[in-house]
Protein backbone atom coordinates (compact mmCIF):
# COMPACT_ATOMS: atom_id res chain seq x y z
CA UNK A 1 0.00 0.00 0.00
CA UNK A 2 1.28 3.44 -0.89
CA UNK A 3 0.61 6.69 0.85
CA UNK A 4 0.82 10.00 -0.92
CA UNK A 5 3.07 12.25 1.14
CA UNK A 6 3.48 15.08 -1.34
CA UNK A 7 1.53 16.50 -4.22
CA UNK A 8 1.22 19.68 -6.20
CA UNK A 9 -1.11 22.07 -4.36
CA UNK A 10 -4.50 22.32 -6.08
CA UNK A 11 -4.19 26.11 -6.20
CA UNK A 12 -0.94 25.90 -8.17
CA UNK A 13 -1.61 25.57 -11.89
CA UNK A 14 0.18 22.61 -13.47
CA UNK A 15 2.44 24.36 -15.96
CA UNK A 16 6.05 25.24 -16.47
CA UNK A 17 6.88 28.70 -15.14
CA UNK A 18 8.84 31.32 -17.03
CA UNK A 19 11.12 31.81 -14.04
CA UNK A 20 14.84 31.12 -14.34
CA UNK A 21 16.31 27.91 -12.93
CA UNK A 22 17.09 28.43 -9.24
CA UNK A 23 14.75 31.40 -8.88
CA UNK A 24 12.79 31.54 -5.63
CA UNK A 25 9.46 32.61 -7.12
CA UNK A 26 8.40 29.06 -7.99
CA UNK A 27 8.92 27.91 -4.41
CA UNK A 28 7.25 30.98 -2.94
CA UNK A 29 4.25 30.56 -5.30
CA UNK A 30 3.94 26.95 -4.16
CA UNK A 31 3.97 27.93 -0.49
CA UNK A 32 1.23 30.52 -1.07
CA UNK A 33 -0.80 27.91 -2.97
CA UNK A 34 -0.36 25.44 -0.10
CA UNK A 35 -1.65 28.04 2.36
CA UNK A 36 -4.69 28.74 0.17
CA UNK A 37 -5.39 25.01 -0.03
CA UNK A 38 -4.80 24.45 3.67
CA UNK A 39 -7.31 27.08 4.73
CA UNK A 40 -9.74 26.25 1.91
CA UNK A 41 -9.92 29.87 0.81
CA UNK A 42 -9.53 29.61 -2.96
CA UNK A 43 -13.09 30.83 -3.41
CA UNK A 44 -12.55 34.06 -1.51
CA UNK A 45 -8.93 34.90 -2.21
CA UNK A 46 -7.77 37.73 -4.47
CA UNK A 47 -4.07 38.28 -5.14
CA UNK A 48 -2.43 41.46 -6.35
CA UNK A 49 0.59 41.19 -8.63
CA UNK A 50 2.47 44.40 -9.38
CA UNK A 51 5.07 45.02 -12.07
CA UNK A 52 8.19 42.90 -11.86
CA UNK A 53 8.97 39.25 -12.69
CA UNK A 54 6.18 38.13 -10.40
CA UNK A 55 3.51 40.13 -12.22
CA UNK A 56 3.00 36.84 -14.05
CA UNK A 57 2.01 35.18 -10.76
CA UNK A 58 -1.48 35.10 -12.22
CA UNK A 59 -0.30 32.54 -14.75
CA UNK A 60 0.48 30.09 -11.95
CA UNK A 61 -1.88 30.61 -9.02
CA UNK A 62 -5.39 29.32 -9.54
CA UNK A 63 -7.11 32.22 -7.77
CA UNK A 64 -8.58 35.58 -8.76
CA UNK A 65 -5.83 38.10 -9.30
CA UNK A 66 -5.32 41.67 -10.41
CA UNK A 67 -2.35 43.38 -11.90
CA UNK A 68 -1.18 46.56 -10.24
CA UNK A 69 0.99 49.45 -11.30
CA UNK A 70 4.58 49.32 -10.07
CA UNK A 71 4.59 50.10 -6.35
CA UNK A 72 0.83 50.32 -5.93
CA UNK A 73 -0.02 46.77 -4.89
CA UNK A 74 -0.86 47.77 -1.32
CA UNK A 75 -3.10 50.62 -2.43
CA UNK A 76 -4.97 48.22 -4.72
CA UNK A 77 -5.13 45.66 -1.90
CA UNK A 78 -6.46 48.36 0.44
CA UNK A 79 -9.24 49.15 -2.03
CA UNK A 80 -10.10 45.48 -2.48
CA UNK A 81 -10.24 44.67 1.21
CA UNK A 82 -12.04 47.85 2.24
CA UNK A 83 -14.64 47.39 -0.48
CA UNK A 84 -15.16 43.71 0.33
CA UNK A 85 -13.88 42.73 3.80
CA UNK A 86 -14.94 39.10 3.20
CA UNK A 87 -12.16 38.66 0.68
CA UNK A 88 -8.79 37.23 1.65
CA UNK A 89 -6.38 39.64 -0.01
CA UNK A 90 -2.69 39.22 -0.53
CA UNK A 91 0.00 41.07 -2.43
CA UNK A 92 3.09 39.49 -3.90
CA UNK A 93 5.76 42.15 -4.31
CA UNK A 94 9.40 42.41 -5.13
CA UNK A 95 11.92 44.65 -3.41
CA UNK A 96 11.78 47.38 -6.05
CA UNK A 97 8.02 47.44 -5.76
CA UNK A 98 7.66 47.32 -1.98
CA UNK A 99 10.78 49.11 -0.81
CA UNK A 100 11.49 51.67 -3.52
CA UNK A 101 8.70 52.98 -5.71
CA UNK A 102 5.98 51.71 -3.36
CA UNK A 103 7.63 52.57 -0.04
CA UNK A 104 4.99 55.18 0.78
CA UNK A 105 2.12 52.76 0.13
CA UNK A 106 3.92 50.05 2.13
CA UNK A 107 4.46 52.16 5.23
CA UNK A 108 0.97 53.64 5.22
CA UNK A 109 -0.85 50.37 4.56
CA UNK A 110 1.14 48.77 7.40
CA UNK A 111 0.49 51.70 9.70
CA UNK A 112 -3.23 51.61 9.01
CA UNK A 113 -3.19 47.92 9.79
CA UNK A 114 -4.74 46.93 6.49
CA UNK A 115 -6.02 43.38 6.92
CA UNK A 116 -3.98 41.92 4.10
CA UNK A 117 -1.09 39.49 3.66
CA UNK A 118 2.11 40.75 2.05
CA UNK A 119 4.50 38.30 0.46
CA UNK A 120 7.66 40.33 -0.04
CA UNK A 121 10.34 38.77 -2.20
CA UNK A 122 13.69 40.34 -1.44
CA UNK A 123 16.36 39.25 -3.90
CA UNK A 124 18.57 42.35 -3.69
CA UNK A 125 18.30 43.18 -7.37
CA UNK A 126 15.84 44.25 -10.09
CA UNK A 127 15.01 41.04 -11.91
CA UNK A 128 12.67 41.79 -14.79
CA UNK A 129 14.48 44.88 -16.00
CA UNK A 130 17.82 43.11 -16.09
CA UNK A 131 19.75 43.38 -12.86
CA UNK A 132 19.82 47.00 -11.79
CA UNK A 133 20.35 48.16 -8.20
CA UNK A 134 17.47 47.49 -5.81
CA UNK A 135 16.76 49.30 -2.53
CA UNK A 136 17.93 46.08 -0.87
CA UNK A 137 21.13 45.67 -2.90
CA UNK A 138 24.02 44.97 -0.52
CA UNK A 139 26.92 47.34 0.04
CA UNK A 140 29.56 46.54 -2.55
CA UNK A 141 27.20 44.41 -4.63
CA UNK A 142 27.75 44.87 -8.33
CA UNK A 143 24.66 45.45 -10.44
CA UNK A 144 24.17 46.83 -13.94
CA UNK A 145 23.73 50.32 -12.46
CA UNK A 146 26.36 49.95 -9.73
CA UNK A 147 29.17 48.46 -11.82
CA UNK A 148 31.75 49.29 -9.16
CA UNK A 149 29.54 47.97 -6.37
CA UNK A 150 26.90 49.78 -4.30
CA UNK A 151 28.43 52.56 -2.27
CA UNK A 152 26.86 53.98 0.88
CA UNK A 153 28.17 57.41 -0.06
CA UNK A 154 26.53 57.47 -3.48
CA UNK A 155 23.50 55.17 -3.25
CA UNK A 156 22.88 54.81 0.48
CA UNK A 157 22.68 51.50 2.24
CA UNK A 158 20.16 48.69 1.82
CA UNK A 159 16.74 49.17 3.39
CA UNK A 160 15.82 46.61 6.03
CA UNK A 161 12.10 46.49 5.52
CA UNK A 162 11.06 44.00 8.19
CA UNK A 163 12.82 46.08 10.83
CA UNK A 164 11.21 49.25 9.48
CA UNK A 165 7.69 47.83 9.30
CA UNK A 166 7.51 45.83 12.54
CA UNK A 167 7.25 48.82 14.94
CA UNK A 168 4.26 50.34 13.11
CA UNK A 169 1.00 50.26 15.03
CA UNK A 170 -1.12 48.35 12.55
CA UNK A 171 1.29 45.47 12.06
CA UNK A 172 0.17 42.18 13.58
CA UNK A 173 2.90 39.98 12.20
CA UNK A 174 6.25 40.56 10.56
CA UNK A 175 8.79 37.83 9.87
CA UNK A 176 11.81 37.45 7.59
CA UNK A 177 12.46 34.02 6.16
CA UNK A 178 14.59 32.52 3.38
CA UNK A 179 14.42 29.78 0.76
CA UNK A 180 18.04 28.64 0.49
CA UNK A 181 17.54 25.16 1.93
CA UNK A 182 14.72 22.77 2.78
CA UNK A 183 14.74 23.68 6.46
CA UNK A 184 14.26 27.34 5.66
CA UNK A 185 11.59 26.59 3.06
CA UNK A 186 9.65 24.82 5.82
CA UNK A 187 10.05 27.89 8.05
CA UNK A 188 8.88 30.12 5.22
CA UNK A 189 5.87 27.87 4.73
CA UNK A 190 4.98 28.20 8.39
CA UNK A 191 5.30 31.97 8.25
CA UNK A 192 3.10 32.26 5.16
CA UNK A 193 0.47 29.99 6.75
CA UNK A 194 0.54 32.15 9.84
CA UNK A 195 0.10 35.35 7.86
CA UNK A 196 -3.01 33.97 6.12
CA UNK A 197 -4.34 32.63 9.41
CA UNK A 198 -4.07 36.12 10.91
CA UNK A 199 -6.18 37.58 8.13
CA UNK A 200 -8.74 34.78 8.51
CA UNK A 201 -8.96 35.66 12.19
CA UNK A 202 -9.49 39.35 11.44
CA UNK A 203 -6.00 40.45 12.46
CA UNK A 204 -4.04 43.31 10.96
CA UNK A 205 -1.18 43.71 8.55
CA UNK A 206 0.86 40.53 8.13
CA UNK A 207 4.07 40.56 6.13
CA UNK A 208 6.51 37.80 5.29
CA UNK A 209 9.79 39.00 3.83
CA UNK A 210 11.39 36.19 1.86
CA UNK A 211 15.07 36.26 0.96
CA UNK A 212 15.31 34.72 -2.46
CA UNK A 213 17.96 34.20 -5.11
CA UNK A 214 17.88 35.95 -8.48
CA UNK A 215 20.30 33.54 -10.10
CA UNK A 216 20.45 35.17 -13.51
CA UNK A 217 21.13 38.69 -12.29
CA UNK A 218 23.57 37.56 -9.62
CA UNK A 219 25.37 35.84 -12.50
CA UNK A 220 25.91 32.78 -10.33
CA UNK A 221 25.07 29.10 -10.54
CA UNK A 222 21.85 28.18 -8.70
CA UNK A 223 23.84 26.60 -5.89
CA UNK A 224 26.27 29.52 -5.51
CA UNK A 225 23.32 31.91 -5.49
CA UNK A 226 21.66 30.00 -2.64
CA UNK A 227 24.94 30.13 -0.72
CA UNK A 228 25.20 33.86 -1.37
CA UNK A 229 21.71 34.37 0.10
CA UNK A 230 22.55 32.20 3.13
CA UNK A 231 25.78 34.02 3.73
CA UNK A 232 25.86 37.60 2.41
CA UNK A 233 22.16 38.41 2.43
CA UNK A 234 21.40 36.95 5.84
CA UNK A 235 24.21 39.06 7.34
CA UNK A 236 22.44 42.21 6.17
CA UNK A 237 18.92 40.86 6.60
CA UNK A 238 18.79 38.67 9.72
CA UNK A 239 16.06 36.04 9.75
CA UNK A 240 13.42 35.87 12.42
CA UNK A 241 10.13 37.14 13.76
CA UNK A 242 10.20 40.91 14.16
CA UNK A 243 6.68 41.19 15.47
CA UNK A 244 3.99 38.72 16.41
CA UNK A 245 1.04 40.20 18.22
CA UNK A 246 -0.65 36.81 18.30
CA UNK A 247 2.12 35.42 20.53
CA UNK A 248 3.29 36.11 24.04
CA UNK A 249 6.22 38.50 24.13
CA UNK A 250 7.71 40.42 21.25
CA UNK A 251 9.03 37.69 18.98
CA UNK A 252 12.35 35.99 18.66
CA UNK A 253 14.23 38.26 16.28
CA UNK A 254 17.70 39.37 17.09
Amino acid at each position, binding site marked *: MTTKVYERPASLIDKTTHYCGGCGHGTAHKLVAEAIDHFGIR*DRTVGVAPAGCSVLM*YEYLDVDTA*ESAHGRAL*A*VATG*LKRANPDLIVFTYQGDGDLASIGL*CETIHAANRGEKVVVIFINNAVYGMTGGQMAPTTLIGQRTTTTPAGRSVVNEGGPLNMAEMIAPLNGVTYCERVALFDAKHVRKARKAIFKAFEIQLNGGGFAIVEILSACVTNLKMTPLAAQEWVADAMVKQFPLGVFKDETAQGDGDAV
Partner: protein
Amino acid sequence: MAERTGNKQLVKGNVALAEGAVQAGCKCYFGYPITPQNAVPEYLSWRLPEVGGTFLQAESEVASINMVLGAALTGARVMTSSSSPGISLMQEGISFLAGDQLPAVIVNMQRCGPGLGGIQPTQGDYFQATRGGGHGDYRTLVLAPANVQELFDFTYLAFDLADKYRNPILVLGDAILGQMKEPAILEPDHPREEPDKSGWTLTGAKDGRPLRNIRSMFLGEGVQEQLNYTLREKYDRMERDEVRYDQRWCDDADCAIIAFGTAARIAISAIHEARDEGIRVGLFRPQTLYPFPFDAIRSLSERVKRLLVLELNTGQMVEDVRAAVGDRAAVGFHGRPAGGLPSVTEVLAKIEEL
Protein backbone atom coordinates in the same frame (compact mmCIF):
# COMPACT_ATOMS: atom_id res chain seq x y z
CA MET B 1 -31.43 72.23 -19.32
CA ALA B 2 -34.85 71.02 -18.15
CA GLU B 3 -36.22 72.65 -15.02
CA ARG B 4 -36.09 70.32 -12.07
CA THR B 5 -38.86 70.09 -9.53
CA GLY B 6 -38.32 69.18 -5.90
CA ASN B 7 -37.02 70.61 -2.66
CA LYS B 8 -34.41 73.21 -3.38
CA GLN B 9 -31.69 73.96 -0.88
CA LEU B 10 -28.82 76.39 -0.88
CA VAL B 11 -25.78 74.19 -1.17
CA LYS B 12 -22.12 74.36 -2.06
CA GLY B 13 -21.05 72.71 -5.32
CA ASN B 14 -18.56 70.36 -3.68
CA VAL B 15 -21.25 69.14 -1.27
CA ALA B 16 -23.81 68.74 -4.05
CA LEU B 17 -21.52 66.51 -6.07
CA ALA B 18 -20.62 64.47 -2.99
CA GLU B 19 -24.30 63.91 -2.26
CA GLY B 20 -24.82 63.03 -5.91
CA ALA B 21 -22.29 60.26 -5.43
CA VAL B 22 -24.06 59.01 -2.31
CA GLN B 23 -27.42 58.99 -4.12
CA ALA B 24 -25.78 57.06 -6.96
CA GLY B 25 -24.86 54.31 -4.52
CA CYS B 26 -21.18 55.17 -4.22
CA LYS B 27 -19.82 52.73 -1.63
CA CYS B 28 -16.21 53.83 -1.37
CA TYR B 29 -14.32 57.10 -1.51
CA PHE B 30 -10.54 57.44 -1.39
CA GLY B 31 -8.90 60.84 -1.60
CA TYR B 32 -6.21 63.22 -0.48
CA PRO B 33 -6.81 66.83 0.60
CA ILE B 34 -6.26 69.59 -1.93
CA THR B 35 -7.90 72.98 -2.32
CA PRO B 36 -10.44 73.79 -3.79
CA GLN B 37 -12.32 70.50 -3.33
CA ASN B 38 -11.79 69.72 0.37
CA ALA B 39 -15.49 69.95 1.12
CA VAL B 40 -15.94 66.73 -0.88
CA PRO B 41 -13.88 64.46 1.40
CA GLU B 42 -15.00 66.36 4.49
CA TYR B 43 -18.64 65.73 3.62
CA LEU B 44 -18.13 62.11 2.61
CA SER B 45 -16.06 61.36 5.72
CA TRP B 46 -19.30 61.35 7.75
CA ARG B 47 -21.90 60.88 5.04
CA LEU B 48 -20.59 57.64 3.52
CA PRO B 49 -20.34 55.73 6.83
CA GLU B 50 -23.91 56.87 7.52
CA VAL B 51 -25.08 54.86 4.48
CA GLY B 52 -22.78 51.90 5.13
CA GLY B 53 -20.02 53.05 2.82
CA THR B 54 -16.28 53.38 3.27
CA PHE B 55 -14.33 56.62 3.45
CA LEU B 56 -10.56 56.58 3.63
CA GLN B 57 -8.12 59.47 3.46
CA ALA B 58 -5.22 58.10 1.47
CA GLU B 59 -1.54 58.98 1.85
CA SER B 60 -1.41 60.57 -1.61
CA GLU B 61 -3.35 60.98 -4.83
CA VAL B 62 -1.25 58.16 -6.26
CA ALA B 63 -2.50 55.85 -3.52
CA SER B 64 -6.06 57.22 -3.81
CA ILE B 65 -6.49 56.30 -7.45
CA ASN B 66 -5.03 52.84 -6.91
CA MET B 67 -7.36 52.26 -3.94
CA VAL B 68 -10.15 53.29 -6.30
CA LEU B 69 -8.88 50.65 -8.70
CA GLY B 70 -8.84 48.01 -5.96
CA ALA B 71 -12.41 48.77 -4.92
CA ALA B 72 -13.54 48.86 -8.56
CA LEU B 73 -12.22 45.29 -8.97
CA THR B 74 -14.92 44.15 -6.54
CA GLY B 75 -17.68 45.92 -8.48
CA ALA B 76 -18.30 48.50 -5.74
CA ARG B 77 -19.25 51.97 -6.92
CA VAL B 78 -16.21 54.07 -6.08
CA MET B 79 -14.93 57.59 -6.59
CA THR B 80 -12.15 59.99 -5.83
CA SER B 81 -11.89 63.74 -6.19
CA SER B 82 -8.99 66.13 -6.43
CA SER B 83 -7.79 69.25 -8.17
CA SER B 84 -5.41 69.71 -11.06
CA PRO B 85 -1.98 68.84 -9.53
CA GLY B 86 -3.54 65.86 -7.76
CA ILE B 87 -5.24 64.74 -10.96
CA SER B 88 -1.86 64.87 -12.70
CA LEU B 89 -0.55 62.46 -10.07
CA MET B 90 -3.48 60.12 -10.72
CA GLN B 91 -2.89 59.82 -14.45
CA GLU B 92 -1.03 56.50 -14.30
CA GLY B 93 -3.85 55.01 -12.25
CA ILE B 94 -6.50 56.39 -14.62
CA SER B 95 -4.61 54.78 -17.50
CA PHE B 96 -4.67 51.47 -15.59
CA LEU B 97 -8.42 51.84 -14.93
CA ALA B 98 -8.94 52.36 -18.67
CA GLY B 99 -6.69 49.43 -19.60
CA ASP B 100 -8.31 47.16 -17.00
CA GLN B 101 -11.76 48.37 -18.14
CA LEU B 102 -12.85 49.28 -14.63
CA PRO B 103 -15.66 51.67 -13.71
CA ALA B 104 -14.77 54.61 -11.48
CA VAL B 105 -15.68 58.26 -11.06
CA ILE B 106 -13.01 60.94 -10.81
CA VAL B 107 -13.82 64.56 -10.04
CA ASN B 108 -11.40 67.33 -10.98
CA MET B 109 -12.13 70.73 -9.45
CA GLN B 110 -9.58 72.51 -11.59
CA ARG B 111 -7.16 75.04 -10.14
CA CYS B 112 -4.64 76.90 -12.19
CA GLY B 113 -1.22 75.78 -13.29
CA PRO B 114 1.17 74.90 -14.68
CA GLY B 115 3.07 73.65 -11.67
CA LEU B 116 1.77 74.50 -8.25
CA GLY B 117 -0.07 77.39 -9.91
CA GLY B 118 -2.61 78.62 -7.43
CA ILE B 119 -6.06 77.89 -6.19
CA GLN B 120 -7.93 80.11 -8.63
CA PRO B 121 -10.40 78.66 -11.13
CA THR B 122 -9.25 77.62 -14.58
CA GLN B 123 -10.08 75.34 -17.46
CA GLY B 124 -6.45 74.54 -18.09
CA ASP B 125 -6.96 70.78 -17.89
CA TYR B 126 -9.20 70.47 -20.96
CA PHE B 127 -6.53 68.75 -23.05
CA GLN B 128 -5.53 66.42 -20.21
CA ALA B 129 -9.16 65.48 -19.55
CA THR B 130 -10.25 64.94 -23.14
CA ARG B 131 -7.17 63.20 -24.56
CA GLY B 132 -6.89 60.42 -22.02
CA GLY B 133 -4.40 62.24 -19.81
CA GLY B 134 -2.09 59.37 -18.94
CA HIS B 135 -0.04 57.04 -21.13
CA GLY B 136 -1.60 54.90 -23.79
CA ASP B 137 -4.35 55.17 -26.37
CA TYR B 138 -7.47 55.63 -24.27
CA ARG B 139 -10.25 58.09 -23.47
CA THR B 140 -12.27 58.96 -20.43
CA LEU B 141 -15.79 60.28 -20.78
CA VAL B 142 -15.77 63.87 -19.46
CA LEU B 143 -18.84 65.57 -18.01
CA ALA B 144 -18.69 69.35 -17.69
CA PRO B 145 -21.23 70.79 -15.23
CA ALA B 146 -21.87 74.53 -15.20
CA ASN B 147 -23.88 74.92 -12.01
CA VAL B 148 -24.45 73.29 -8.64
CA GLN B 149 -27.48 71.34 -9.84
CA GLU B 150 -25.42 69.83 -12.64
CA LEU B 151 -22.64 68.96 -10.21
CA PHE B 152 -25.17 66.80 -8.39
CA ASP B 153 -26.83 65.45 -11.54
CA PHE B 154 -23.66 64.75 -13.52
CA THR B 155 -21.89 63.05 -10.63
CA TYR B 156 -24.98 60.90 -10.13
CA LEU B 157 -25.00 60.11 -13.86
CA ALA B 158 -21.25 59.47 -13.95
CA PHE B 159 -21.65 56.26 -11.92
CA ASP B 160 -24.17 54.83 -14.40
CA LEU B 161 -21.90 55.73 -17.32
CA ALA B 162 -18.87 54.23 -15.58
CA ASP B 163 -20.71 50.93 -15.14
CA LYS B 164 -22.26 51.04 -18.60
CA TYR B 165 -18.89 51.37 -20.32
CA ARG B 166 -16.61 49.87 -17.65
CA ASN B 167 -14.50 52.97 -18.00
CA PRO B 168 -13.30 55.82 -15.78
CA ILE B 169 -15.56 58.88 -16.00
CA LEU B 170 -14.34 62.40 -15.24
CA VAL B 171 -16.44 65.19 -13.81
CA LEU B 172 -14.61 68.39 -14.72
CA GLY B 173 -15.43 71.38 -12.54
CA ASP B 174 -13.34 74.26 -11.29
CA ALA B 175 -12.60 76.29 -8.17
CA ILE B 176 -15.67 78.49 -8.68
CA LEU B 177 -18.18 75.70 -9.29
CA GLY B 178 -16.92 73.68 -6.34
CA GLN B 179 -17.00 76.49 -3.82
CA MET B 180 -20.05 78.50 -4.89
CA LYS B 181 -23.48 78.07 -3.34
CA GLU B 182 -26.64 77.86 -5.42
CA PRO B 183 -30.10 76.46 -4.92
CA ALA B 184 -30.17 72.83 -6.03
CA ILE B 185 -32.35 69.76 -5.66
CA LEU B 186 -30.32 66.99 -4.12
CA GLU B 187 -32.57 64.21 -5.32
CA PRO B 188 -32.05 62.27 -8.52
CA ASP B 189 -34.54 62.81 -11.33
CA HIS B 190 -34.30 59.23 -12.54
CA PRO B 191 -33.52 55.85 -10.95
CA ARG B 192 -29.93 54.76 -11.15
CA GLU B 193 -28.94 51.98 -13.51
CA GLU B 194 -26.43 49.64 -11.95
CA PRO B 195 -25.86 46.62 -14.15
CA ASP B 196 -25.08 43.14 -12.89
CA LYS B 197 -21.30 42.99 -12.58
CA SER B 198 -21.02 39.40 -11.36
CA GLY B 199 -19.66 38.31 -14.73
CA TRP B 200 -16.34 40.05 -14.34
CA THR B 201 -15.65 41.17 -10.75
CA LEU B 202 -12.99 39.68 -8.50
CA THR B 203 -14.92 37.97 -5.75
CA GLY B 204 -12.83 34.88 -5.24
CA ALA B 205 -13.35 31.96 -7.63
CA LYS B 206 -16.59 30.65 -6.11
CA ASP B 207 -18.45 27.43 -6.91
CA GLY B 208 -15.59 26.07 -8.96
CA ARG B 209 -15.63 28.85 -11.52
CA PRO B 210 -12.30 29.38 -13.28
CA LEU B 211 -9.99 32.06 -11.96
CA ARG B 212 -10.37 35.62 -13.15
CA ASN B 213 -7.54 37.98 -13.82
CA ILE B 214 -7.94 41.68 -14.42
CA ARG B 215 -4.97 43.29 -16.09
CA SER B 216 -3.80 45.54 -18.86
CA MET B 217 -0.59 43.77 -19.88
CA PHE B 218 -0.89 41.13 -22.59
CA LEU B 219 2.35 39.77 -23.96
CA GLY B 220 0.89 37.39 -26.54
CA GLU B 221 1.33 38.28 -30.19
CA GLY B 222 -1.32 40.82 -31.16
CA VAL B 223 -3.28 40.57 -27.90
CA GLN B 224 -2.39 44.04 -26.65
CA GLU B 225 -3.27 45.43 -30.07
CA GLN B 226 -6.66 43.70 -29.88
CA LEU B 227 -7.32 45.23 -26.44
CA ASN B 228 -6.76 48.65 -27.96
CA TYR B 229 -9.24 47.89 -30.76
CA THR B 230 -11.76 46.73 -28.14
CA LEU B 231 -11.29 49.99 -26.26
CA ARG B 232 -11.63 51.96 -29.48
CA GLU B 233 -14.93 50.23 -30.23
CA LYS B 234 -16.13 51.29 -26.79
CA TYR B 235 -15.08 54.90 -27.38
CA ASP B 236 -16.90 54.80 -30.73
CA ARG B 237 -20.07 53.80 -28.87
CA MET B 238 -19.55 56.67 -26.42
CA GLU B 239 -19.08 59.08 -29.33
CA ARG B 240 -22.30 57.81 -30.90
CA ASP B 241 -24.49 57.66 -27.78
CA GLU B 242 -23.22 59.96 -25.06
CA VAL B 243 -22.77 63.42 -26.58
CA ARG B 244 -24.51 66.01 -24.40
CA TYR B 245 -24.85 69.73 -24.86
CA ASP B 246 -27.08 72.66 -24.00
CA GLN B 247 -27.99 74.98 -26.87
CA ARG B 248 -29.93 78.17 -26.19
CA TRP B 249 -30.98 81.32 -28.03
CA CYS B 250 -29.46 80.00 -31.23
CA ASP B 251 -32.61 79.99 -33.43
CA ASP B 252 -32.47 83.69 -34.26
CA ALA B 253 -28.78 84.19 -33.47
CA ASP B 254 -26.36 86.13 -35.65
CA CYS B 255 -23.49 84.85 -33.61
CA ALA B 256 -22.99 82.32 -30.80
CA ILE B 257 -20.66 81.75 -27.89
CA ILE B 258 -19.33 78.24 -27.36
CA ALA B 259 -18.27 77.70 -23.76
CA PHE B 260 -18.48 75.07 -21.00
CA GLY B 261 -18.56 75.20 -17.20
CA THR B 262 -17.83 78.52 -15.53
CA ALA B 263 -16.98 80.17 -18.86
CA ALA B 264 -20.52 79.37 -20.02
CA ARG B 265 -21.91 81.21 -16.98
CA ILE B 266 -19.97 84.32 -18.01
CA ALA B 267 -21.16 83.80 -21.59
CA ILE B 268 -24.80 83.71 -20.42
CA SER B 269 -24.40 87.06 -18.64
CA ALA B 270 -22.80 88.53 -21.76
CA ILE B 271 -25.55 87.13 -23.98
CA HIS B 272 -28.26 88.76 -21.84
CA GLU B 273 -26.51 92.13 -22.07
CA ALA B 274 -25.93 91.75 -25.80
CA ARG B 275 -29.57 90.91 -26.40
CA ASP B 276 -30.61 93.94 -24.33
CA GLU B 277 -28.58 95.97 -26.82
CA GLY B 278 -30.27 94.21 -29.73
CA ILE B 279 -27.37 91.91 -30.65
CA ARG B 280 -28.72 88.39 -31.14
CA VAL B 281 -26.21 86.08 -29.54
CA GLY B 282 -26.76 82.38 -28.90
CA LEU B 283 -25.10 79.88 -26.56
CA PHE B 284 -23.73 76.46 -27.28
CA ARG B 285 -22.53 74.71 -24.13
CA PRO B 286 -20.91 71.27 -24.37
CA GLN B 287 -21.87 69.16 -21.36
CA THR B 288 -19.63 66.33 -22.48
CA LEU B 289 -16.13 67.36 -23.51
CA TYR B 290 -15.30 63.82 -24.55
CA PRO B 291 -17.23 62.81 -26.53
CA PHE B 292 -17.20 66.29 -28.02
CA PRO B 293 -20.33 67.54 -29.82
CA PHE B 294 -18.60 67.85 -33.21
CA ASP B 295 -21.74 67.19 -35.25
CA ALA B 296 -23.93 69.64 -33.35
CA ILE B 297 -21.32 72.37 -33.65
CA ARG B 298 -20.93 71.64 -37.35
CA SER B 299 -24.71 72.03 -37.75
CA LEU B 300 -24.63 75.23 -35.75
CA SER B 301 -21.88 76.62 -37.96
CA GLU B 302 -24.06 76.06 -41.02
CA ARG B 303 -26.64 78.47 -39.60
CA VAL B 304 -24.63 80.85 -37.42
CA LYS B 305 -21.63 82.27 -39.22
CA ARG B 306 -19.83 83.95 -36.35
CA LEU B 307 -18.75 81.86 -33.37
CA LEU B 308 -16.82 82.92 -30.29
CA VAL B 309 -15.14 80.29 -28.13
CA LEU B 310 -14.78 81.44 -24.53
CA GLU B 311 -12.51 79.52 -22.15
CA LEU B 312 -10.62 80.00 -18.89
CA ASN B 313 -7.32 79.22 -20.61
CA THR B 314 -5.38 80.43 -23.63
CA GLY B 315 -7.18 78.21 -26.09
CA GLN B 316 -7.81 74.47 -25.79
CA MET B 317 -11.41 73.56 -26.66
CA VAL B 318 -11.17 76.05 -29.51
CA GLU B 319 -9.06 73.49 -31.39
CA ASP B 320 -11.96 71.03 -31.30
CA VAL B 321 -14.41 73.74 -32.34
CA ARG B 322 -12.22 74.70 -35.30
CA ALA B 323 -11.98 71.04 -36.27
CA ALA B 324 -15.80 70.82 -36.19
CA VAL B 325 -16.44 74.08 -38.03
CA GLY B 326 -13.77 74.02 -40.72
CA ASP B 327 -14.35 77.00 -43.01
CA ARG B 328 -18.14 77.05 -42.56
CA ALA B 329 -18.01 79.95 -40.11
CA ALA B 330 -15.60 82.40 -38.51
CA VAL B 331 -14.30 81.14 -35.15
CA GLY B 332 -12.98 83.73 -32.71
CA PHE B 333 -11.47 83.03 -29.33
CA HIS B 334 -11.31 84.78 -26.03
CA GLY B 335 -9.76 83.30 -22.93
CA ARG B 336 -8.15 84.24 -19.66
CA PRO B 337 -5.83 81.71 -18.04
CA ALA B 338 -4.81 80.92 -14.48
CA GLY B 339 -7.41 82.70 -12.41
CA GLY B 340 -8.04 85.56 -14.82
CA LEU B 341 -11.80 85.75 -15.41
CA PRO B 342 -13.14 87.28 -18.62
CA SER B 343 -15.52 90.13 -17.85
CA VAL B 344 -18.85 90.56 -19.57
CA THR B 345 -17.48 93.80 -21.08
CA GLU B 346 -14.52 91.90 -22.55
CA VAL B 347 -16.80 89.28 -24.01
CA LEU B 348 -19.15 91.89 -25.50
CA ALA B 349 -16.19 93.62 -27.11
CA LYS B 350 -15.07 90.31 -28.63
CA ILE B 351 -18.56 89.66 -29.97
CA GLU B 352 -18.54 93.03 -31.66
CA GLU B 353 -15.14 92.23 -33.21
CA LEU B 354 -16.45 89.06 -34.85
